């Protein structure tokens, strides 16, 4: 027995086994199941385990699918750009402008405060704020900025993106801040000694060195936005759709195979997107 344990190869395998089993049962198996179900047939209240392409045929045959996927990408792209801009700025401020570590930690914790409530609450609290008779409109009206309430503030793409940015910016701040803290300050000194100005340092030193953090944040935000359905439902007043809503509608109507087919296509799309993103930056350096 002892001899066996001394065998490096064997103990290596044994140590890896628990995690492998957990992943196999809770990640790989469910995904396989989803793929299998996506080829089944469904009637209104039963699922028939018979092979069919019907679900995929319907999915790819409907112009709505393309529209909805396009919409999903649109939300992801806009949210990504906004969260990156805000997240980078906040992280930059925290990492390079706040001098003491105590303040850095304090301000960083301040950023996380909204996360102490559920994200549904954070999202829904926008509704009375943005409504036709909401605080935003009444304030603008009383300042004389507008004559009529702005309709597009609520139940619109604007509202959806606003909620996404609000919900997910922290997922950008954290990894970017983390990478920035690891940048060797002497590099910045060296750049300054070599005559670079602030903008040049930012562009040629800090941004390239922060790329892995930005990439991790990007993966978080893109995956979260592409998989979301509840934000889109509430903030658009059910009037816009992304892929998540297609899936949730199918599930509500008991059409699990169709939902599974959509989920498979979404999974592949997200994997593909992340695969492409990873071609640009090697995040392994970061981990």
């Amino acid at each position, binding site marked *: 027995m002892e001899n066996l344990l001394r065998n490096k190869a064997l103990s290596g395998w044994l140590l890896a086994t628990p995690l492998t089993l957990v992943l196999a049962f809770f990640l790989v198996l469910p995904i396989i199941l989803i793929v299998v179900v996506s080829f089944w047939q469904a009637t*209104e*209240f039963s699922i028939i385990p018979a092979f069919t392409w019907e679900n995929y045929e319907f999915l790819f045959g409907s112009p*709505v699918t393309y529209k909805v996927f396009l919409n999903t990408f649109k939300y992801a792209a806009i949210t990504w750009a906004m969260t990156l801009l805000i997240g980078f700025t906040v992280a930059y401020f925290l990492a390079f402008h706040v001098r003491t570590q105590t303040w850095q930690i304090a301000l960083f914790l301040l950023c996380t405060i909204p996360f102490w409530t559920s994200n549904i609450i954070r999202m829904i609290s926008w*509704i009375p704020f943005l409504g*036709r*008779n909401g605080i935003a409109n009444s304030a603008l009206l009383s300042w004389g900025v507008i004559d009529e309430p702005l309709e597009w503030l609520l*139940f619109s793409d604007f509202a959806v993106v606003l909620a996404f940015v609000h919900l997910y910016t922290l997922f950008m701040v954290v990894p970017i801040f983390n990478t920035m803290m690891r940048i060797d300050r002497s590099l910045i000194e060296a750049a300054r000694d070599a005559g670079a100005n602030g903008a040049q340092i930012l562009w040629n030193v800090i941004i390239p060195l922060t790329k892995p953090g930005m990439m991790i944040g990007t993966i978080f935000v893109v995956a979260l936005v592409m998989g979301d359905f509840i934000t889109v439902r509430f903030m658009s007043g059910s009037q816009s759709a992304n892929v998540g*809503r297609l899936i949730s509608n199918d599930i509500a109507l008991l059409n699990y195979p169709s939902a599974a087919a959509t989920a498979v296509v979404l999974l592949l799309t997200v994997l593909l997107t992340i695969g492409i993103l990873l071609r640009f930056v090697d995040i392994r350096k970061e981990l």
Partner: protein
Amino acid sequence: MTKINRRNLLKGGAAFAAGSTLGAPMIWAQNIKDVTLRQFGTGVSNLNEVAQKVKEDLGFNLEMTALDSDSVTQRAATQPNSFDIADIEYWICKKVWPTGNLQAMDTSKIKNYDKIVGIFRNGKLTPDSEIAQGTAPHTVGFTSGPDGKDFVQEESGWMTLIPTIYNADTLGIRPDLIGRPIKNWSELLNPEFKGKASILDISSIGIMDMAMVVESMGEYTYPDKGNMTREEIDMTIGIFTEAKKNGQFRAFWKSFDESVNLMASGEVVIQSMWSPAITAVKSKGIECVYQPLEEGYRSWGGGIGLSAALTGLERDAAYEYINWYLDGWVGGFLMRQGYYSAVPETSKTYMSENEWGYWFEGKPATDVITSPFGDPLAQAGDVRDGGSFYDRMGSVACWNSVMDENMYMNRKWNEFIAS
């Protein structure tokens, strides 16, 4: 140590399973107070007050779970062991009954069966009423026998659901923000209300509201709104997609609370709505009318079904519960919120003369009308929107329904929401 192999493990497991299922009813038999019935259904009648009163009057526990219509259907169809009593609508019954997850109920055990209104027995409110389109409750209310999976059109003595609650739905409006009379369903798509209209995002009900609007606009007359052909579905949803693209709708709603908020906040001034939602808006002191329309109402009915798995003492408790349900207290409770009870006459004893006059007979209130929760809903002199029970239930144009082309309709509905 005993060797653990697969065979021993299975034996042990089987013994354990047998012990836990067989042993349980004996424990229950000792005391009915330990019986717990799990009821689930849409929010309308899943009220904690009912569960409390059951505990007081009958002694056993009733656990209530409220879900939206889609989830209710899903659960009734796919998780038969997760409930004892299903509080569902008749159109849901049409979908769920063939799965065999519910059991037929013996009408001879229902004390007030003879007093149940005609709508749920032969389909006729009064002997000369016409039966409306759609899934009329009596068409899916009876089955052939204790093990029937089919529906029969006569009073067979075996009911699929015991009717409990029903109402006639129409559009809700904010008269203070509209400022003129509304008489037709077609007003929902009137450009005057651009960006201020809403419709509910529950396909099987929404499509019926759409059909009422399309007919009212004079675009098309359906042979049967409750069972459209593919072409009719395309045409109906096409008209609404066009309106959506033109910005007619402010939002769609899926849950009761959403509809209340949309109306109360003034985001929407005309929309499909449910009766208690109107009540909820009114109780905030905001003017809101459940507008009777010339084309008639879209009606719905709900009832209680028993899980096929329910047996023995628990089933007896469930029958006792059903009899209690039809005995009047719940009926009065529901009628004071604007619904109707399946056995109105028993509810009368639990309502004041003023309440009965206002809610059922359509008479002007002689005093303040309050909801069961104490909120004032109407002042002396007010008349219920739509009038009496016979006026309202007598002008039902269609019942909530499930179509033969339901799958197709759902897909089209999905496209409507996504477009």
